[in-house]
């Protein structure tokens, strides 16, 4: 690797341009390290978002050389091409400034997909025992480790084409809850994801699965939701 990286960063909001910076190359350097170097040493007006720096909080996702990545856990050596990095704000979301996007539409769709746990018991009931090896719990666990980073949403072609589409993260969350035997809001949830913009809009391109930093498989979750909603529709539990 050369001793210097050529880094293009998006500057502006919805309209703007890429500006190029020279950043020293270091060993074990992450993309977030590069952005932080620019902000601390070259241009303090650069805006970007991060919090934990260890891949837990899901704040620091950006477009890196054309792909959405969690920048704190993405090594420069894995993604730089000839010492060049092009870093932009996440696609499919409004840009606030520079590398920071407005995540509001992303989280509103979690609400639209009924991504909130609806309890079936009160605090006065005994704690329900859930065996971890039951099929429902295994399916719920497989989808539960999402960190809300927005990488899948940004990678999704269907979101790009259909702004009403809820997207992989919201539907993956819904799948986790659909398999949660403690949840009491299943019919409403299936109804919410069975309309236009719901799970049936997915084209199974699998970009979400390929790029999810947690190695989750939202495509499989959405396929599961398609099956469950069809079953519920045929039984008359939900309407089209």
């Amino acid at each position, binding site marked *: 690797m050369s001793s210097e990286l050529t880094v293009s960063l998006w500057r502006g909001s919805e309209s703007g341009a890429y500006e190029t910076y020279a950043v020293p190359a270091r060993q074990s350097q992450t993309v977030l390290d590069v952005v932080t170097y620019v902000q601390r040493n070259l241009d303090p007006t650069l805006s970007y978002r991060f919090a934990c720096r260890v891949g837990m909080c899901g704040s620091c996702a950006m477009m890196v050389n054309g792909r959405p990545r969690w920048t704190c856990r993405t090594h420069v050596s894995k993604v730089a091409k000839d010492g060049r990095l092009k870093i932009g704000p996440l696609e499919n979301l409004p840009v606030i400034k520079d590398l920071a996007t407005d995540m509001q539409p992303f989280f509103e769709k979690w609400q639209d997909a009924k991504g909130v746990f609806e309890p079936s018991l009160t605090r006065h009931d005994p704690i329900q025992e859930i065996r971890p090896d039951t099929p429902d719990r295994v399916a719920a666990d497989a989808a539960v480790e999402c960190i809300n980073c927005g990488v899948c949403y940004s990678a999704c072609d269907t979101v790009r*084409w259909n702004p*009403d589409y809820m997207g992989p993260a919201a539907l993956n969350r819904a799948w986790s809850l659909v398999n949660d035997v403690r949840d009491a809001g299943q019919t409403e949830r299936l109804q919410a994801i*069975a*309309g236009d913009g719901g799970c049936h809009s997915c084209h199974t391109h699998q970009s979400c699965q390929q790029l999810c930093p947690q190695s989750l498989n939202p495509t499989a979750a959405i396929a599961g939701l*398609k099956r469950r909603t069809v079953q519920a*529709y045929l039984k008359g539990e939900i309407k*089209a």
Partner: protein
Amino acid sequence: MNVRLYLWQRLTAAAMVPLIAVHLAVIFYATRQDLTAADILARTRGSIAWALFYGIFVAAAAIHAGIGLRNILVEWSRLRARTAGIAAMAFAAVLAALGARAIAAVVLP
């Protein structure tokens, strides 16, 4: 796409798999056996079986293509879902009418 349209598109796709196979076999048979138009019409005119076969085929194709076109319009044009649905339904009706006309031409005595 909602669950009803999804279900109809999958059902019509499944229905068309064997129909397409038979349709292709018929084309190969007709060309390999050098059947003339008169030979073909002699077999199809008054045949309820061929009328049913291609009637179901045309209906399935019209429904399947209509739903697919609606989806393409929603994703690739600026039409709203409702307008895209109306446009796609009109397209499906044209497909069904053209198909029905073709069936009538070979099946009616």
